[in-house]
């Protein structure tokens, strides 16, 4: 992790005074993450360049941190090379006085904009070259950002998420340092960075004089202050590792869908829940299973239905159940309310006798998360094992996807969707299941139906023939 600062305002070596670092010396500073070095590749009257190089100790960084020590990503990562949050921290520590704008030797210089060039050869950037321009451009910098190839041997792999960035312009040195201090972590937006409570004060100090008028200040503040949980390797992440896939490929039970309804975020989900509740009311269901309850949005609605006396939220993901427990505040619920609801880890590919004997089961946006080859097992578990009087199934209508401009062609609405059915495909599946298992089935639209491609979500109500 490395950056250089250059000025060509004679006498350029005054940069040494401004930074409080002598141009003829190499200085080292011990930091928590490793050792920071400051040296000057050039220092003459015409041009002076200061370089900050942080030698990260990759072994030391993770030693003794048992909570997070067991993920391979902790050991082999880009931190020793990329100019992310660790470099920003080093910059703030090593140039603390300069960052505050103090320079007792050249006070007039510190108070005056000088021509500056900044080079960051490997800037991690989530958002592409355009974001760098959007962040630094309004501050008066000319921005040149060149993408770094992922691997020249495999050109088909494309670009890496790093940019070789050159900034040039006139600025107060302290402003330049403050801007780098804030914007490097904002661009990085990486997992290992999380902020403490006093970080708001730090941001206000470092943003003084430039952040308030920045057109992207909301993005900057949001990214800078976002509280990321420390990266704790879950049991699921370890299984992902055993299989050499990224942790979030398996541990995605709470992953967000691709934003489809940008105009009214959440409107379709709300319509879906309302329709499901209406169907349950109509069926007179009192004891209800929410199979695949996720973080419990429908469970909260069901709790608000006085006619529903018993609610069981079922999910296979322990993480989802924990989220539901938090959302519903089960630990603070009154005993009477608490007695109405329970959460259970179970899997619809196994037969679970505890799910038998309920009035209704809801599978809201669940079937499309099951591999087609495993649907017969789900069918058995739900329609043969649990065998409730009413089964409500909702699933995306694949035909409607063309009405979601945000969704690319042939893309699915969620990274974990194994398929999305057309109306005909869903009707065929539902009809066959009903026939095999002794249910009647009817179909309802959810959301505003489109004359051509139907409603965004499809819903099927199965009613057991023997009541």
């Amino acid at each position, binding site marked *: 992790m490395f950056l250089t600062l250059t000025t060509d305002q004679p006498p350029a070596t005054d940069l040494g005074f401004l930074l409080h670092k002598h141009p003829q010396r190499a200085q080292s500073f011990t930091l928590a993450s490793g050792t920071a070095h400051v040296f000057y590749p050039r220092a003459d009257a015409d041009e002076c360049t200061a370089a900050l190089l942080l030698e990260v100790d990759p072994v030391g960084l993770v030693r003794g941190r048992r909570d997070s020590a067991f993920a391979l990503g902790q050991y082999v990562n880009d931190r020793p090379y990329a100019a992310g949050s660790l470099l920003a921290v080093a910059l703030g520590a090593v140039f603390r006085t300069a960052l505050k704008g103090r320079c007792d030797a050249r006070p007039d210089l510190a108070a005056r904009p000088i021509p500056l060039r900044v080079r960051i050869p490997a800037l991690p950037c989530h958002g592409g070259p355009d974001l760098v321009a959007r962040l630094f451009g309004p501050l008066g910098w000319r921005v040149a950002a060149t993408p770094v190839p992922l691997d020249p041997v495999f050109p088909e792999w494309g670009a890496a998420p790093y940019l070789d960035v050159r900034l040039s312009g006139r600025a107060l040195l302290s402003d330049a340092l403050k801007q780098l201090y804030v914007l490097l972590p904002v661009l990085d937006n990486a997992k290992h960075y999380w902020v403490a409570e006093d970080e708001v004060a730090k941001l206000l100090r470092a943003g003084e004089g430039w952040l308030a008028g920045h057109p992207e200040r909301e993005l900057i503040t949001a990214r800078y202050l976002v509280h990321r949980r420390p990266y704790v390797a879950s049991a699921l992440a370890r299984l992902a590792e055993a299989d050499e896939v990224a942790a979030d490929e398996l541990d995605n039970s709470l992953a967000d869908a691709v934003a489809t309804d940008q105009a009214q975020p959440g409107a379709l989900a709300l319509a879906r829940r309302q329709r499901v509740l209406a169907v349950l009311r109509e069926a007179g269901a009192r004891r209800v299973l929410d199979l695949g309850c996720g973080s419990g949005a429908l469970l909260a609605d069901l709790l608000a239905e006085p006619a529903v006396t018993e609610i069981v939220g079922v999910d296979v993901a322990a993480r989802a159940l924990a989220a539901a427990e938090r959302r519903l505040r089960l630990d603070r619920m009154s005993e009477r309310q608490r007695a109405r609801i329970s959460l259970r880890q179970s899997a619809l590919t196994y*037969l679970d006798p505890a799910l038998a004997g309920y009035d209704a089961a809801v599978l809201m946006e669940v079937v499309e998360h099951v591999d087609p080859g495993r649907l017969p097992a789900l069918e058995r578990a739900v329609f043969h094992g649990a065998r409730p009087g009413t089964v409500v199934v909702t699933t995306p209508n694949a035909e409607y996807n063309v009405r979601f401009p945000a969704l690319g062609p042939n893309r699915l609405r969620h990274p974990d969707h194994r398929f999305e059915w057309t109306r005909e495909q869903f009707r065929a599946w539902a009809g066959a299941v009903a026939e095999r298992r002794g249910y009647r089935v009817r179909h309802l639209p959810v959301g505003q139906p489109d004359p051509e491609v139907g409603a965004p979500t499809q819903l099927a109500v199965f009613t057991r023939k023997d009541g």
Partner: protein
Amino acid sequence: MAELSIPDMSLVVLVGVSGSGKSTFAGRHFAPTQVLSSDFFRGLVADDVNDQSASAEAFDALHHVAGKRLAAGRITVVDATNVQREPRAALVRLARQHHVLPVAIVLDLPESVCLARTAARPDRDFGAHVIRRQRADLRRALKSLSKEGFRRVHVLRGQDEVDAASIVVEPLLNDRRAQTGPFDVIGDVHGCLAELVDLLAALGYVVERDERGRAVDAHHPLGRTVVFVGDLVDRGPDTPGVLRLAMGMVERGHALVVCGNHEQKLVKALRGRDVSTGHGLAESLGQLAGEPPEFRARVEEFCDQLVSHYVLDGGRLVVAHAGLPERYHGRASGRVRAFALFGDTTGETDEYGLPVRYPWATEYRGSATVLYGHTPTPEVEWVNNTLCLDTGCVFGGKLTALRYPEREVVSVPARRTWYEPVRPLLPTGPAAAPAPAAHPAPNSPDPTAAETDGAEPDGAEPDGAETDGGEPDGADRTPRGEPDLLMLADVAGRRTVLTEHHGRITVRADQAAAALEVMSRFAIDPRWLLYLPPTMAPTATSALAGLLEHPAEAFGDYQAAGVRRVVCQEKHMGSRAVVLVCRDSSAALARFGVEGHGAVHTRTGRAFFEPELTERLLTRVGEAVTSAGLWDELGTSWLLVDAELMPWSAKAGQLIRDQYARVGAAAAAVLPVAERELAAALARGVPVADLLDRVTRRAADAEAFRAAYRRYCWPTRGLDGVRIAPFQVLASQGSTHHHRPHTWHLAVAERLVAADPELFAPTRSLAVDTADADSVAAGVRWWEELTSAGGEGVVVKPEANLTRGGRGLVQPGVKVRGREYLRIVYGPDYTAPEHLSRLRQRSLGGKRSLALREYALGLEGLARAARGEPLWRVHECVFAVLALESEPVDPRL
């Protein structure tokens, strides 16, 4: 001396007033842990054995403990006065709930004796009126005890009888554990005498005939015993003839018969009860009318004393007409008998309004083999260690027997259709649409009918009332259908798996929770999933300069464990793949019940390729197995192979790009710039020489890191470019192969390579004698050559394969990875001395222990799969390996 007989597993209720000597009696005849005394429980809940206000809580606790004991089949004695009807009734209910027989032993002692004893106890302060009231209760009890449901009532009058009494525990009538067979278990005969004689001949029995040529006995020269699953009678052409033969065999000890629902109904009809004569009873009655009254009487007595089920061969075999869940094995109650004769229903009805049969067999998890009949099916099919032997002979199917313990099925065809089924027998097979069994049940048999046999319940309580007593008909649809159903309880929560090679292995609940999510959301169909590869420990850490791993430690450790001959196998840098390939789709359907040719899956049970590509790959693998001649050589129609699938990038491509390539890209972008700037500073005389050296070295390390992962990446399109390096045959029909030396396994792999060199990659290997310095040196040299040419490293394994040492299992293999390859694992700069010295302090104990546990689980699952054990038994091992993989262990090992 009076012997008081009590049935095994019974609940013994002592009855007697205070001071009648119940506790003394119990203490003399039973172990202290068998006796539950109300005084003791009052003490437990209230710190005072005489606190009558605590009685309700005390009895609650007593019943709870008694229930636990009865559930485990342990004789339990309740030491309380029990002179009142209500507490006795509660105990009778408890016994029935656990399907054991309640027995009463009454101590009827003179009032004076009881009064004197009570007065002599300083802790008893109740007056004589209490004793007198209890005596009055006792007198009433003596009149009603046998009507309350107690199967035996022993009354001891006076101290002399009490002193003279002794207790004898009798086995239940169903308890034939001492009979070890071998047996030939025969399905529903239904009056088909000719076919029965055919079948007995096919089984090797010699039939004896009387002077009129009628079959009256059959015996086997090797002393085998026939067990009939019931329903000898009705529908068929010669019910009397079948009964004559069966009764003769039973009388001479050549056969056992369990009661079928048709026998039970026949008894009622013969006794003149008003029963409907449908379902072939009319035929039986007509045929029996032609027999002399003595024969009819004999039939009535024979059928009446048939027991509901037998437990045979040390508890390993259970025969019951309609099958029996494990909790009913060896038990006696009205409900057990009702289940054994009629089966059970779920309480639901199907689309015809007919009761849905309870799928007890799909949920059966017992270790005893259960053989039964009752529901005709065209072909027999094992479901979780149970087998229905009714193949609809009377409906024109066949008559079937199972040789036990050989588990061979022997059938003879029906000579004709003797009785028209309402609907023809459906063809079965996993492909057939599963459907609940429907039972036209116009009449409801009474499962509570009185029995005469001593230890069978009299059904005083209508235990079986909720069963519909479904009468299976030829129209019956198979209840099997879905034998592959796995239960959540098979995997969830804290579980222990007993393994042959490493004892009990525990899976914690949190580990199971993680595995449940991955197995359920990402893994392939469990019927294809017989094995997940165990993790492998690396060799002990090397002390050699610049190295973390070196083969010397591996050789040394094996030598220390007493293993001289080891084999070094080239480690392919790909992705671990398990390949299950079937000879053809019909073999796959027959063995695994799934359409297709097998599966190719990862270490966590995920499919490598989409279905169409998998099928194409399996077709090629199958062709290679065919041309290598392995199907016939191994006598199998399926083969499970452990392999490495290459390139690494085929599966791990995303990970390589997102993690490894990024590190290389960032390093390559920044380090050369830093180097240039440092060189410029140095040229100016700034003292940065050391720093420049380090950065230069790191730049070289980063390039080496890129070179390391690049070796294992090449583009693939579909299957083009995909290669498989098999190195072990895991299992095939009836066999596992972990006792065969690795030389054999590699020779098999060679033959596959020869058959399809484009798809299969060879695995180079070298045998090393760990006690021979030259051989060890050659092994080291080979590792050096392989790894300096870019190879990942080698795996060192005991050549003999599965090896046990003085301290149990020896590691089945250790990996010795190359210096450059380890950059991918430990980071580009790990070879820097300051890093290496810290990295050497790695701890291998946890990884080694995990490797052995997963290895033993893998072998256990393979053995179960090879034996054809039920899916849940295989799956629990597979699942346990996945669960253990979620254990937090340093992923770099």
